């Protein structure tokens, strides 16, 4: 098997190949994570086709990729693990953005040590282990101490020729600031196993907007993880608009005093697809504050499962954990499963939780229609309004417009 791996991951060092082998062995006796009552049979995690593909940078993007990009300003395009295009202004001069392949080529010690370290840690979760074992695309973003990046960094991550096993590492050092708008896309029917880790150091501020736009024939496992230290702030906004089956796991660890996170998510499930979303905020420090807001729409025969988990560990006094999930169903055949969990092992805390599932409010519809709006127009306005607290967070107007358009298309009755 080792030889096989060496053929497959031909650019890797021998020690990485050994680590990969170890992970694959580990994976064999690991089981899939338990996520609600999600039927994993739809996901086909066993049939993989993973390849290592190198591609050169281009000065102009191919039309098939351009058509999926809304805003070319300050963008980095990563395709099958290669940075094929980047267009960044001087605001990003101090920010290190490097793919795994680039790190190998330039023998960048710092980046390589970060990339390698990941292979060494063993997870309990089969899907995470799989992501490491077959990783064929990885990216490092590092914002040095005290660097405040005013412009939003757009990341466009694409899988085409191979199943995508991607990992992004984002380090924001002390008192730095960064906004990222990340979009995940595919050009061919592939499997996607996507992971990211954001490290928010002391006093750092990160806004992370993830837009998932995978096609109907791409099954996805997406795991985004945030780690927030003292006085750090992480605002996570997720636009989960995949057309295919998706498991989306979002974990935020509040590790320092006054660590703050907001997780605001738009979820859209349609056709006969299964979407399982977990948003888990772990309060691992006193005086930490976390808020979860989920707004979801389910259409057709869609199945949406949303688990919000606010966990305050023992001794983490004065922590504040709140969450609210609201789902609108647009069809009698849609299935929704919303669980707002609060797990509290400490007395001196603030907490609140709630979840609601329902149809579009008939009184609101009647009110709008009484001014001449057709039912579909009124429904569209109300739903976009319902999603607006999250849509408003997208800092690029063009991406915002395209996001709205995607939702409008999905809503077309």
């Amino acid at each position: 098997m080792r030889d096989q791996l060496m053929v497959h991951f031909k650019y890797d060092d021998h020690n990485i190949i050994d680590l990969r082998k170890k992970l694959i062995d580990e994976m064999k006796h690991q089981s899939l994570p338990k996520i609600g009552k999600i039927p994993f049979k739809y996901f086909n995690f066993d049939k993989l086709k993973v390849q290592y593909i190198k591609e050169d940078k281009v000065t102009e993007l191919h039309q098939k990729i351009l058509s999926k990009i809304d805003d070319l300003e300050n963008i980095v395009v990563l395709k099958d693990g290669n940075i094929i295009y980047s267009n960044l202004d001087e605001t990003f001069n101090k920010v290190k953005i490097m793919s795994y392949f680039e790190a190998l080529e330039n023998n960048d010690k710092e980046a390589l040590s970060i990339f390698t370290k990941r292979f060494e840690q063993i997870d309990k979760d089969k899907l995470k282990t799989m992501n490491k074992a077959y990783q064929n695309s990885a990216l490092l973003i590092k914002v040095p101490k005290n660097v405040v990046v005013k412009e939003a960094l757009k990341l466009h991550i694409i899988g085409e020729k191979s199943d995508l096993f991607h990992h992004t590492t984002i380090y924001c050092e002390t008192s730095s600031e960064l906004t990222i708008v990340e979009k995940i896309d595919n050009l061919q029917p592939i499997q996607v196993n996507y992971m990211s880790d954001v490290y928010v150091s002391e006093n750092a501020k990160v806004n992370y907007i993830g837009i998932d736009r995978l096609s109907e024939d791409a099954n996805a496992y997406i795991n985004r993880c945030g780690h927030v230290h003292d006085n750090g702030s992480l605002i996570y906004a997720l636009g989960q608009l995949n057309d295919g089956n998706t498991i989306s796991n979002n974990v935020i660890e509040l590790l320092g005093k006054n660590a703050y996170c907001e997780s605001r998510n738009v979820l859209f499930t349609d056709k006969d697809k299964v979407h399982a979303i977990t948003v888990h905020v772990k309060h691992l420090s006193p005086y930490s504050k976390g808020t979860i807001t989920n707004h979801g729409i389910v259409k057709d025969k869609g199945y949406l499962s949303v688990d919000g988990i606010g966990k305050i560990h023992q001794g983490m006094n004065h922590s504040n954990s709140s969450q609210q999930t609201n789902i609108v169903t647009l069809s009698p055949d849609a299935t929704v499963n919303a669980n707002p969990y609060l797990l509290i092992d400490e007395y001196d805390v603030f907490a609140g939780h709630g979840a609601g599932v329902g149809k579009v409010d008939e009184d609101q519809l009647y009110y709008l229609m009484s001014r001449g709006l057709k039912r579909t127009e009124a429904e569209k306005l109300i739903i976009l309004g319902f999603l607006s607290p999250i849509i408003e967070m997208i800092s690029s107007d063009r991406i915002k417009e395209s996001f709205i358009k995607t939702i409008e298309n999905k809503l077309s009755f």
Partner: protein
Amino acid sequence: MKPVLEIKNLHVEVDDKEILKGVNLTIKGGEIHVIMGPNGTGKSTLSSAIMGNPKYHVIEGKILLNDENVIDMPVDERARKGLFLAMQYPSEVPGVTNSDFIRTAMQSKTGKSIPLYKFIMDFDKAIEKLQMRSDLPHRYLNDGFSGGEKKRNEILQMLMLKPTFAILDEIDSGLDVDALKIVGEAIDSLRSETFGCLLITHYQRILDYIKPDYVHVMMKGAIVKSGGMELIEKIDQEGYDWIKEELGIENERVVPEEAHKRPAMIGECATKKSLDL
């Protein structure tokens, strides 16, 4: 030709209870009608039934807008034909801005796209006329509005949409004296041969600014008395008892006053208080 709204022998049911028991009323362009009456006599039911609220079922009778029966039309179609209802309790719609909403409504009505610049000009003018906050276009529809603001917003929508017939359901409740004047004058400014108005009210105060041509009194789900301004003055001084006496009505209500029920709301824990134990 003057527009005409005719209500003929209208019987309306809500939750299997007959509320309107044969209302007859004709409003022509240029006319302002007022309906008065004690609580629970069917005034709001009449306005909702004319507009086409799906909870109100017409079991008999006709509503003719320029000779066309609108009873089988859904509410949005009636609105596009020129009917407008300023609601007693307008809904709050968070996330939808006033300007998006009004512009969409205007475009639905005319079927034409309205240039943004012209729209903003007109909207700002109307906002000024009603002395509302200048950030109104960007605020969410009625979201967090005070009672008075909501009422003004109804009139604002009316000014923008220019309906043929407007029904104003207790537009004066919750307005202070100054607001009453502003709203009253705004309504009066629409007076023309191509606009008719039905005003439902408890108080004659707003009538200082809008002089009605006809006054009707509703009791027991029907119009029991019609007249002019003199009727208002008498009601203002003597109340409704003389009408009840004259017509031999003991209880003017359509349905008896129900015991006050407080439903337990979602989001409220099942406490003794909320369950009324």
